[in-house]
């Protein structure tokens, strides 16, 4: 850096050039008389069938927003994890009298919005359409039809979303945190999976609806340019016929704190930052007098631009931001620190997080800093009152958790009353730095070793499940041993050596096209393949032991480079007996999880050219995945093929299902036919004449 810069501190504009007049700028102006803060008025009144209706009148804009939610305890969904949310979303997609198209059209025609989620329905728009919004909302809430085609679509979209979630480091770290802190049998530890979503049926959605949608558990909050009389009239008109009922109360076990601080690491090799959460559960009920003290304590530690932000960002430049959150909950609350830092300082950042957690436990907070936290909380609270929806949120909270009616009216007074000693007391009582979870999503190769300083490091996958990972040194199997076992399992050496040729036919679907593939091989290394997108295109390719060719739009072309290489590999009748002839070396490089199976990873490398990785189950020694890493101008490119459902064909054990993933496309293929030793003619491998 520029030396001048380091040596001196300069004003960007010389003071002398500025006429300052009478204003003494060195004095920071003090506040004027404190304005009166009035918590906005709202009403709560129940309808005849027990709906608690909250009305917050706000006439600033000619708009209205309303939401209805079912006041229920969190549920354990088990094998159908995600069903309550999915059933909720589906309500918006069709009613007894309207299709989704009709609902969409009616909503957009008045420029409004309408949505539904896990046991909730919401709508907003201009207040002149208030009655129409009631009409639409009650139709969705009381007469959902759960159409099968919309359910199918939602399942497909949700599965796509789950696949996408694996790439979002923030979502991944959130899942790890949830699963480790709460465990799989607690509602907060449950995460929907492609499998659980796939099990959801229309009947299951109806069951959710029939279980939970009871007016005597419903809260309806209406906010905006409306008055109470009008809202109560509309509520009676549109929700009056809804019949009361009883919702079962679930029972839970309370998650225990961790035995000691541990690190849960998800390897995301391409990461340029580590996404970090430091977290623990907190046993704190909303009605506890500690809530307001904890809130002040958390503000000092990780609110706004307080300690964590000042330390990790402004002092160390590790991150763009660092914060903490801590709150009560009817089941079990949580404390969580959030930050994302560059790979190299991952461990230093975690160290600083723990330093701050220890400091707030060990030292009494300074009076000035405490006052700053209270002022900040007070300001945030006042600003939040501008948003009428937020005011409705406070009112709903009071209703749901049976808080005193003046809970938020007196909130600021209670904040002001918290002492420095009380801040330290609750920090000591609730924060347990030697029993915290450090969850990290990042480049394991760069961060794993250093994270061991905080506790045992356990690896998790991108779905938040523990990874069974054995270090290579612990694997006693050699690559050749694995190959022998595989050959033995799939027919035995004698039988495989005796195979002179084989023909496999497969078919499948990609989007709306039918795919047909035929592959003919002849020992030792000849191959011919036909690939057809039925009705669209057909391609033939082959390798005759010396040269490779393929048909294409420009006629027949010679294969070279990676394509030729891959034909040579595919051409081997028994790759595990022949890989050395192709100048590959094989090595066991680890134990990995492949679709839930623990597999040996064998990596084949070659001085120049592609790398291959094959995965063999550690118990049955069958192969479940092949990965080819190609070198392309955009960098390395992976093609992965999964194989499964092995079946016996005249003494040869062959996979009958293949699933290929490349370039974001998946292709599932089923083996239709397998023949061996039919006497294949060499002619099929010869390059057709012409260009």
């Amino acid at each position, binding site marked *: *850096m*520029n030396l001048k*810069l380091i040596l001196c501190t*300069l*004003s*960007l*504009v010389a003071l002398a050039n*500025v*006429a300052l*007049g009478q*204003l003494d*700028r060195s004095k*920071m*102006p003090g*506040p*004027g008389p*404190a304005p009166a803060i009035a918590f906005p008025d709202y009403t709560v009144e129940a309808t005849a069938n027990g709906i608690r209706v909250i009305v917050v009148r706000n006439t600033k*804009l000619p*708009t209205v927003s309303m939401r209805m939610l079912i006041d229920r305890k969190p549920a354990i969904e088990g094998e159908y994890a995600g069903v309550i949310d999915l059933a909720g979303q589906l309500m918006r997609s069709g009613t007894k009298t309207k299709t989704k198209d009709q609902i969409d*059209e009616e*909503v*957009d*025609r*008045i*420029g*409004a919005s309408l949505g539904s989620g896990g046991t909730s329905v919401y709508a907003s*728009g*201009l207040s002149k359409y208030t009655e129409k919004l009631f009409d639409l909302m009650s139709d969705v809430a009381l007469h959902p039809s759960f159409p099968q085609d919309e359910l199918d*679509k939602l399942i497909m979209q949700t599965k*796509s979303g789950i*696949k*996408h979630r694996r*790439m*979002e480091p923030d979502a991944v770290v959130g899942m790890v945190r949830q699963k480790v802190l709460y465990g799989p049998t607690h509602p907060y530890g449950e995460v929907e999976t492609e499998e659980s979503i796939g099990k959801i049926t229309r009947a299951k959605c109806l069951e959710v609806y029939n279980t939970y949608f009871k007016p005597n558990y419903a809260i309806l909050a209406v906010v905006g340019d409306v008055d109470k009389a009008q809202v109560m009239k509309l509520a009676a008109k549109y929700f009056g016929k809804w019949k009361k009922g009883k919702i079962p109360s679930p029972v839970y076990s309370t998650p225990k704190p961790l035995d000691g601080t541990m690190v849960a690491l998800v390897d995301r090799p*391409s990461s*340029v*930052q580590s*996404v970090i959460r430091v977290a623990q559960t907190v046993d704190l009920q909303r009605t506890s007098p500690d809530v307001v003290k904890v809130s002040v304590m958390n503000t000092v530690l990780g609110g*706004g631009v307080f300690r964590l932000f000042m330390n990790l960002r402004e002092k160390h*430049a*590790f*991150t*763009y931001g660092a914060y903490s959150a801590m709150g009560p909950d009817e089941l079990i609350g949580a404390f969580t620190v959030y930050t*994302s830092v560059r790979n190299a300082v991952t461990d230093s950042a975690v160290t600083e997080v723990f330093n701050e957690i220890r400091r707030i436990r060990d030292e009494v907070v300074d009076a000035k800093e405490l006052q*700053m936290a209270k002022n*900040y909380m*007070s*300001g*945030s609270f*006042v*600003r939040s009152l*501008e*948003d009428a929806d937020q005011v409705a949120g406070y009112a709903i909270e009071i209703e749901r958790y049976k808080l005193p009616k003046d809970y938020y009216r007196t909130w600021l007074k209670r904040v002001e009353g918290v002492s420095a000693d009380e801040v330290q007391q609750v920090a000591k009582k609730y924060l347990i730095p030697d029993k915290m979870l450090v969850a990290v999503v990042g480049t394991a190769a760069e961060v794993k070793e250093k994270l061991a300083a905080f506790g045992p490091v356990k690896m998790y996958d991108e779905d938040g499940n523990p990874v069974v990972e054995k270090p290579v040194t612990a694997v006693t199997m050699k690559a050749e041993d694995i190959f022998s076992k595989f050959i033995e399992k799939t027919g035995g050496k004698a039988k495989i050596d005796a195979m002179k040729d084989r023909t496999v036919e497969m078919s499948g679907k990609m*989007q709306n096209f039918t795919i047909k593939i035929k592959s003919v091989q002849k020992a030792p290394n000849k191959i011919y393949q036909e690939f057809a997108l039925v009705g669209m295109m057909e391609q033939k390719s082959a390798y005759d032991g010396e040269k490779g060719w393929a048909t294409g739009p420009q006629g027949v072309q010679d294969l070279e480079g990676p394509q030729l290489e891959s034909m040579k590999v595919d051409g081997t009748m028994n790759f595990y007996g022949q890989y050395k002839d192709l100048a590959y070396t094989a090595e066991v490089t680890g134990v990995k999880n492949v679709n839930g199976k623990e597999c040996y990873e064998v990596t084949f490398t070659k001085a120049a050219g592609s790398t291959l990785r094959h995965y063999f189950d550690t118990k049955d020694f069958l192969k479940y995945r092949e990965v080819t890493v190609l070198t392309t101008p*955009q*960098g*390395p490119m*992976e093609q992965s093929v999964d194989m499964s459902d092995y079946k016996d064909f005249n003494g040869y054990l062959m996979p009958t299902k293949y699933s290929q993933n490349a370039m*974001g496309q*998946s292709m599932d293929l089923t083996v239709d036919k397998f023949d061996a030793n039919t006497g294949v003619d060499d002619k099929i491998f010869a390059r057709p004449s012409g260009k």
Partner: protein
Amino acid sequence: MRKRIFVLLTFLISLGTLLVAQVNIKFVEYNLPNGLHVILHEDHSVPIVSQVMAYHVGSKNEKPDRTGFAHFFEHLMFEGSPNIPRGQFFKIVQNAGGDLNAFTSFDKTVYFITLPSNQLELAMWMESERMLHLKVDSIGIETQRGVVKEERKQGLENRPYGSILEQTMAHSFKVHPYRWTPIGSAQYIDRASYDEFAQFYKSFYVPNNACLVIAGDIDIDKTKELVAKYYGDIPKGEGEIFRPKDVEPPQAAEVRDTVYDNIQLPAVIEAYHMPAQGTKDYYALSMLTTLLSGGESSRLSKRLVDKDKLALVVQTFPLDLEDPSVFLLFAVDNFGKAPNEVESTVQDEIVKVQNSMISEEEFSKIHNQKETGFIEKNATVQGKAMELANYYLFFGDANLINSEINNFMAVTREDIQRVARQYLIPTNRTVLYYLPKPKS
């Protein structure tokens, strides 16, 4: 006779569109002698006040080898002044119960503070301090250099699809500085020097290049006095303020590329060149985006998400910028769906708009959607302050906060069809496919 009825009918319809639910936001505005434009708006519903200072400088004022500079400078604006020591700026506002932040876009850099209304004077002192005599030191520069690089990683490099805007602009623009984005490149963030910051501050952070808006629980006369007290003595900028004159030449042929990213689901991005915000065709294109992707009944959502199930989400929007920019389309494929199929289906819908005029009914639907959106924008005092500053700086008319809706309502069905034909053509666009990158 029939003709007269028709005329009468159209008159009634146009009267109808003028009678959209409107909220009249009152304000006063004036210039200080140093050129600072001031707008004041009273709203006593909650005892808070928002102050917005918007500077007419953004990433388009940067040099090509200093991309990210304006945003980096925005971070330095929190460093302090001779009267505000380093590290205190945030703390003072927080201690007063306030909230503050800033953002940098292609065209502007905006600073905002919201405080309890009895702290109005504090907000003015702080904002005027850093306009008058910002002070930064090497520690501050190096710290923020690190912070900005982490911001880039968090928002762009480590996030799926995070690079879309950067890639789209780089492909769409060859000449105009919109070809880079406000976050800039880490390489140039490393090179920015103290002298360059001093020069940038002197050129752009002057009262005659800014608009100050104060909105909320205020008294207009008292506020005027305070404005004069804190901002009146700040000297006017002397040099000419640099505005890029580059004109992006018309695109001659379609640009097409593939980007590999850490994603599971491919995405398709299309960017069509379009005129600057505030022009007649801009309003027509904006109405067209509502037709295509506003709400679940919109044409692209209905077709790609509901009917053909090709996409998880599809969005179109004009990038609202001072110079001619782009009309963007963004679609995330459902799993297993090919980007080319998504693209051809989008194209099919675009061709429909080009070939047949939209119905009166659909037209009235998008009117209503625009109307609601326009009204909902002004829910908070900070939101209103931002809008006022933006309308003044880029349209020269703060009252558009009340009247811009009329420009949307003046768009005809014919206009929508015409702009679809004129702008949404292959030679005028960039198409990007985002595809999953293999793990290495």
